[in-house]
């Protein structure tokens, strides 16, 4: 027989945790909680509108409410503010969008890691990335943590776990008064030769992104997509290929995958990609011969002919922009999860779309949430309406945090 819901509190009290708590148990718990009926009423009221009626009546079971018991506890000490998600007992913001006294940073992308904070807690690699991007004085002080190295801020126990998103990316595990919240930051599940793989951390509340939170988003295998690029380079040796990549993470991942296909010609990099790639190299990643587009050491600017039939990587914004005018006839390629939708590729004038993403796609998103067995899910950014709808319908309390300042397009 199942225990009463209230006695489940404390299940995740220890750092070791436990992952044998089934999803069914937790959702059943949420539903049987007597504190919830008003939320059902709200939803029923909502369900009276338009299309929603159809499937609500079609399913005998009502959708899950917005909150679980643990979620209600968590939202008293972890909540969105205009500066970002704030953990009150730790007096720390997670990925704040403007300067704060204490920040915990999930990864080095510019919409998560900003400069100007007093104290920053993050991984050593994210710190290095921030130094490259913003300079040595980008924060008052850094404290770095290895994955799973515990620390306490106030009464909150904090650990970092790999997020599989980019080099140094981390999920943040927060435990306070026996409730465990995992803030995933951005993450993916597919293997990536340039970063540590995502780890599932069971929790009460899983705070997830939903960049690709629609069932139409299913990424291809990245190694196959890189293969398409290499095949195109071989098939069209007279045209060179301009590959749009996000400068941190996607760039280096594509370099590694392209080399895995045995492509061994020099690869040219737009100036904006050079420093971060060098940082990866300083960690021992080998991308073969890399040359900056702009200049050849001691010889000045390169001539356009040098790129003929070659591969050039640049930020997506540089394609079809002033910068790319120096190249005559090129194959515009773009590696991004957005390339799944034809209109998105056409809009950018992309001829060879590569569906490679550093975010989870829809099936991975749903699978990950299931695996964390979280009793409640908070959605930070992306297609939060679709994900929240789906989760509640499948019996899991969920809500959108509507965090500001996330750049979903940069992928």
């Amino acid at each position, binding site marked *: 027989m199942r225990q009463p819901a209230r006695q489940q509190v404390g299940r995740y009290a220890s750092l070791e945790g436990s992952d044998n708590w089934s999803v069914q148990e937790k959702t059943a718990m949420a539903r049987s909680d007597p504190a919830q009926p008003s939320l059902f009423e709200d939803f029923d009221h909502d369900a009276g509108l338009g299309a929603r009626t159809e499937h609500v009546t079609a399913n005998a079971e009502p959708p899950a409410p917005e909150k679980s018991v643990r979620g209600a506890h968590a939202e008293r000490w972890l909540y969105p503010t205009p500066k970002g998600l704030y953990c009150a007992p730790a007096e720390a913001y997670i990925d704040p969008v403007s300067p704060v006294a204490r920040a915990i940073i999930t990864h080095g992308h510019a919409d998560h890691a900003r400069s100007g904070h007093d104290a920053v807690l993050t991984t050593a690699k994210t710190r290095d990335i921030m130094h490259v991007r913003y300079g040595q004085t980008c924060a008052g002080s850094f404290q770095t943590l290895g994955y799973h190295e515990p620390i306490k801020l106030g009464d909150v126990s904090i650990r970092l776990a790999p997020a599989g998103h980019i080099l140094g990316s981390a999920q943040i595990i927060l435990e306070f008064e026996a409730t465990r919240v995992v803030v995933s930051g951005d993450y993916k599940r597919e293997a990536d030769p340039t970063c540590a793989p995502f780890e599932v951390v069971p929790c009460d509340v899983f705070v997830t992104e939903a960049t690709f939170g*629609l*069932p139409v988003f299913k990424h291809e295998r990245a190694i196959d997509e890189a293969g398409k690029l290499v095949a195109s380079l071989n098939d069209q040796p007279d045209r060179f290929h301009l590959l749009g990549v996000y400068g941190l993470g996607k760039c280096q991942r594509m370099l590694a995958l392209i080399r895995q296909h045995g492509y061994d010609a020099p690869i040219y990099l737009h100036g904006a990609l050079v420093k971060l790639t060098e940082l990866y190299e300083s960690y021992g990643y080998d991308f073969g011969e890399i040359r900056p587009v702009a200049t050849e050491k001691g010889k000045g600017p390169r001539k356009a002919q040098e790129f003929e039939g070659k591969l050039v990587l640049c930020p997506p914004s540089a394609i079809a922009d002033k910068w790319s005018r120096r190249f005559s006839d090129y194959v515009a390629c773009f590696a991004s999860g957005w390339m799944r*939708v*034809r*209109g998105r590729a*056409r809009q950018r004038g992309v001829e060879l779309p590569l569906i490679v993403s550093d975010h989870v796609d829809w099936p991975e998103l749903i699978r990950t949430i299931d695996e964390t067995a979280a009793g409640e899910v908070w959605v930070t950014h992306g297609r939060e309406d679709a994900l929240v709808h*789906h989760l509640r319908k499948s019996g899991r309390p969920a809500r959108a945090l509507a965090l500001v300042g996330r750049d979903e397009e940069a992928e």
Partner: protein
Amino acid sequence: MQRFAQLLDNLVYTQSRNRKLALLGDYFATTPDPDRGWALAALTGGLPIRFPLRRVLGDILTDIIDPELYKMSRDYVGDTAETVSLLWPEHEGTRSPPSLNDVVETFQTTSPNAHAPLLKNMLDQLDTSGRFALLKLLGGAPRVGVSARLAKQSLANGFETDINDIEEVWHAVSPPFEELFAWLAGEGPRPDPGLKPVFRPLMLAHPIEDQDWPNLEPQDIVAEWKWDGIRVQVAAKPTEVRIYSRTGDEITHSFPEIASAFTGLDCVADGELLIVRDGVIAPFNDLQQRLNRKAVSARMQRDYPAHVRLYDLLLSGPDDLRGLSLVERRTQLEEWIETHSPPRTDLSSFVSFDDFEHLQSIWETTRADEIEGLMLKQKQSPYIAGRPKGYWWKWKRAPLTIDCVMMYAQRGSGKRSSFYSDYTFGVWKDGTPEDPALGELVPVGKAYSGFTDAELGKLDKFIRENTTDRFGPVRAVEPRLVLEIAFDAVQPSPRHKSGIAMRFPRIARIRWDKPAEDADTLETIEALLPKQ
């Protein structure tokens, strides 16, 4: 099917016209009959299958996806076929994708009751691209940036034939075009239209530009009124009469009285289709009542009597006049009208002028006379299919402009699927420009052109920052941006709240500087309605 799906994908991502031609040419050269013929049919006007795609999808999607998630996905992707192709679950096990011919045969021969399970099974056999292609085919003509003309051009290039030769035999062949491909490959006779009245590609004009004038001599030019109707070709053979639109679409069924007027004659004539009552041309709006109708009632014919005003004569009996000069053809046309004088038909007369200054003064009156402008034609011009340079020019009347306020914005499709690129704009009603608090905005039109990509970016940003409400893909915006709208004319329209509809509206300028309360009023537009 997979081959065709690959072609569609490649076409979608290829911007260069030449590369598209190469892709198509390669496909037609290397794909066997009848699949390539079905592909050609799909690209030029649709497959000969009627498939209620929306209804059948409605049936099969309920088992596949939650309706709310589907709606959100569809809104995001902006295209039904693509949405379904993307979210369709991948079928486990080996697949046997259908050929294009399988698809056509299956849906031509099965009863509608069997459609849902058949479609479901086919979708299971295909990958994402294949599913997209299948759904596009069943939904009508796939829009992949290929016009019928481009498809025909690729045949012309691939088989080293003149495209106008292809156009001429086009109405003598039908899907899956085996006869056409045999002729193109030199393995069969030229398809013979026989006694069928087939379409001959029209000769079209260029808009006149400032730099054209110095190259024109008044004595070499004839001027004609540009009548405000639709350009048609009447092709008559003793057995049958057909009326074609400019693009070669047959519209005979919409204008049976014109077909009757030419019955028994043998000619191909070029003219303007108009509604004429007691010798007076009715506004374009009246003609619209007659367009796109499957059947035309006697009452329709009485209330909106159709008429053809002839510009040119291409064929007369056995004689092909297209190689003659315009003035020679004109003489023949005049004689022909005199001889046959078909009812509901007259001649478009030339506009006489002394010099270009004089002509300019005539052009300036075209707005008042409700004529669309002037045509200028070289007297020596032969009748050449297409839009040859240096022979014919259109000189459209100057557009009207009015300052409107942006009210709603909608996301575009295709290339613009993430941009708010379609704008509904309004003017003040029951209020003065000085005191808009007394009035309200009423929508008067919608435009999605006339701006650059950079301006589109700015507009998109403005809309996102000034959204006041959302209705699916549409956003209501704070009424503060003034758009100067250029348009050709306004017509009364009971369907619109404002009671008017604009013709050819486009954005002339974005008035970032102008306060919304200074935009125009409904009265200003109403004053531009044609006087009845």
